[in-house]
């Protein structure tokens, strides 16, 4: 039996070899949007870059027994069945140029504003091996956002992954922008990764950052919804790989991913189109791993560099318990939850104090912020919880102590209000809340 199979296989191989050089050339068999079924290319490697004439570019996503699957990342004119597919002999990768700092670019290092490639392009591996556990050290240096509810209550440290989650139009991107602007003079390279955002939105982000002088140290890495879906899938990974390159040189990098829900939806699309079995909510089974392997690159490296990641997730009706959200919450080191209800009440930023968490907490704060933060947080949470239970109860029926606590809580909440691009320094935050904490003693 074995001998017979070998014979059949060898005959077949020889027949193909003699006909034409299919080891390096293949032909398109089927086309499903940006996913191609290709015959031939017997010598191609998994994830190798391929070209379909000068019409399209893609990479090999599956090597089957009889044919292989190619997903396209670029398509300039229609691809037809029977078109020739050529292997390039190199792995698919992203490109990056140090000159792209200050610009809107894509993963091919093309300037999206003038559609030209940057000079000095270098290859960036999209998939890099996980960072060894022993190369990490404790996250302890603060990264100030300039927003008092974050810096005081749910602080972010360099190397931390902090999720920003909330409904549409609750100010998620704004928190990211405030944070980038606040890095001025801090020697932090910022990478804003836009996935599936409209071109208008990305241009607005660019002009805001430009206006506040933040583009000098920021790269906007964008993949728009009208590009091939595999580009959207690979863009955040490529962005993190760029950050990793800088971190390994000892630099601090801040990465914003706006947003991961769109990324998950794109991956679902590709996965279902390629005929993979759907898992929970029809997402591919490895959706958690896809996000985890990416966000796990965020860390404080022992060489002194760090990657701080602020992924953004959009939810519906304030429900943070859906599949993708809980997945990401269980990866990140905490979350800032924004509530539409608070937003409508005029609370800016619309932080939901009960649901927001920082798992690193005081470890990334200075001693005075840490001490003040734990008091203020306790007081505020007590006020919010109690005011719900006693919503309609008569305040006079409360003891004096309780009444004082309630009015203090109300004042804390009021002082958390802060408008966009009105950064407060840590000293200002301490000053603002210190007297409230003192009133307690």
């Amino acid at each position: 039996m074995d001998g017979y199979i070998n014979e059949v296989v060898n005959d077949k191989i020889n027949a193909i070899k003699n006909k034409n050089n299919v080891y390096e050339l293949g032909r398109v068999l089927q086309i499903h949007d940006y996913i191609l079924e290709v015959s031939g290319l017997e010598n191609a490697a998994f994830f190798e870059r391929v070209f379909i004439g000068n019409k399209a570019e893609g990479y090999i996503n599956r090597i089957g027994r009889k044919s292989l699957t190619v997903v396209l990342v670029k398509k300039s004119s229609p691809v037809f069945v029977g078109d020739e597919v050529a292997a390039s002999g190199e792995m698919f990768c992203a490109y990056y140029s140090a000159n792209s700092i200050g610009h809107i670019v894509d993963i091919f290092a093309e300037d999206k504003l003038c559609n030209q490639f940057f000079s000095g392009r270098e290859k960036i591996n999209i998939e890099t091996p996980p960072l060894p556990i022993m190369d990490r050290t404790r996250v302890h240096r603060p990264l100030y956002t300039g927003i008092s509810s974050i810096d005081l209550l749910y602080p972010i440290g360099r190397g931390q992954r902090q999720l920003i989650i909330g409904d549409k139009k609750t100010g998620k991107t704004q928190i990211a922008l405030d944070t980038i602007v606040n890095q001025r003079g801090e020697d932090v390279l910022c990478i804003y990764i836009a996935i599936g955002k409209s071109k208008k939105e990305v241009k607005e982000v660019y002009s805001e950052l430009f206006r506040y002088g933040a583009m000098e140290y920021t790269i906007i890495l964008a993949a728009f919804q009208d590009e091939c879906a595999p580009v959207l899938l690979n863009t955040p990974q490529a962005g993190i790989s760029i950050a990793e390159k800088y971190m390994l040189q000892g630099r601090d990098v801040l990465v914003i991913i706006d947003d991961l829900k769109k990324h998950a939806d794109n991956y679902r699309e590709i996965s279902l189109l390629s005929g993979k079995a759907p898992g929970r909510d029809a997402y591919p089974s490895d959706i958690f791993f896809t996000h985890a392997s990416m966000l796990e690159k965020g860390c404080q490296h022992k060489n002194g560099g760090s990657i701080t990641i602020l992924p953004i997730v959009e939810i519906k009706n304030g429900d943070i318990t859906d599949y993708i959200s809980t997945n990401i919450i269980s990866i990140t080191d905490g979350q800032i939850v924004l509530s539409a209800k608070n937003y409508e009440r005029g609370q800016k930023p619309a932080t939901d104090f009960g649901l927001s968490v920082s798992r690193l907490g005081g470890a990334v704060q200075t001693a005075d912020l840490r001490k003040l933060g734990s008091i203020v947080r306790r007081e505020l949470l007590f006020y919010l919880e109690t005011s719900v239970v006693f919503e309609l109860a008569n305040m006079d029926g409360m003891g004096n102590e309780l009444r004082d606590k309630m009015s203090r809580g109300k004042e804390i909440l009021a002082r958390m209000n802060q408008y966009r691009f009105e950064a407060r320094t840590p000293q200002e935050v301490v000053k603002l809340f210190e007297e409230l904490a003192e009133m307690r003693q």
Partner: protein
Amino acid sequence: MRLGKIISVSNLRVDILLENRKIDIRNIVYAERDGRRDYFEVAQIDGSIALAIPFGSVNGLKKGLDVYLHEGGLQMEYSDRILGRVFNAFGGPIDGLTLQSSCTKNIYNKSLTLSEIEIAGDILHTGIKALDFFAPMQKGFKMGLLGGAGVGKTVLIKELINNVYKGFGSNSVFIGIGERSREGKELYDEMLESNLLDKLAIAFGQMGESPMARSRVVYSGLTLAEYLRDEKKQDVLLFIDNMYRMIQSNSEISAELGHMLVDNGYSTTLLSDVSEVEERINSTENGSVTSFQAIYIPADDLADAAVNALLSHLDGQVVLDRKIAEKGLYPAIDVFHTKSRLVTPEKIGKRHYGLVNEVIRYLAQYQELEKIVAVLGIEDLSEENYNIFYRSRKLRNYFTQPMFVTEQFTGLAGQFVEISAVLDDVEAILSGKYDAEDESTFSYVGAINHG
């Protein structure tokens, strides 16, 4: 020994055309290219084609590469040299130190027979009020710590390591499955700094690693625990964070093998996978294995098939709830779902048993009253309900506790509380002794000391 050639490659699966059929499921094979080896585990054999799961990335693999057998399969160190060390899922040390191996063992050990299993054990205190009160433990127990994302499972596991491992004086094993690498490194650093590492063996397959690593690390870790139990004849503490991630990685693998997925995408072999692992975690006459297993609840769905598959093996469960965490009450324990096989009048005594029932009755009533008070105010409550309302709030606050491992976050010193003090305090609150006290004085304290 050459086995055959690769004939297809996808993300998590490599098909091998066999020339030599002397191969079994769970054999380890490898291919060589550019001087490095890619390892695979055989998962399925269809006639002359073997389906194998890669240990790492498949980028760059080609059709036609030769595949060889890795003799011995997956091996884990099986000697005293495991103590103080950190291993990956495949048995290699990852703490940067060298390992002079003296004896190794295949990680796929058989489970215990009925006659080998020992079920008796002494009561074990954790010093955490809510755990000792609602879900008391004994040696040899399997305690599940369940919760959705970000409600405090990992903090609880770390507090248990702090309270139980430090007081236990015996060797322990920590298995990190699919959790944050940052936390893994912090655990290592903390143990090293407080000179506790020499009694601990660690195995990590964290969330950034391949599905194969996350799926198999539990077997590697159990081999460590079995060495301590069977060869050193010790009582072993086993901490697993997080069991759910093993099932999750199995479903990633299963989907790629083309198996029919069940119930929210879990692998077809969900129940047998869980049994295979859980049946190895048991006590024998040589020594006991007491395990704390964190279990993630996906999408806050307590009815999830994977969670329930695990629960059927446990002796007790502590459920953490988002609604309670939202109110700033930590540990955020949902008392209605937290239970232990030990809560019977024979095992913990009539007094403790009676108090547990009474507290649950109060808190159940409180939930109803909370809705009434929000609408009608407190004045309209009967005297009995008025007392239940305020005493329940005190009880609720009393079961919060400052933890040793969160001192830097809360600014409060950790507290270890004896169960006798908890019973006295609960009895006093229920009897109305503290009715005049402000409820906030019960929050984040150890035992009550009101003179």
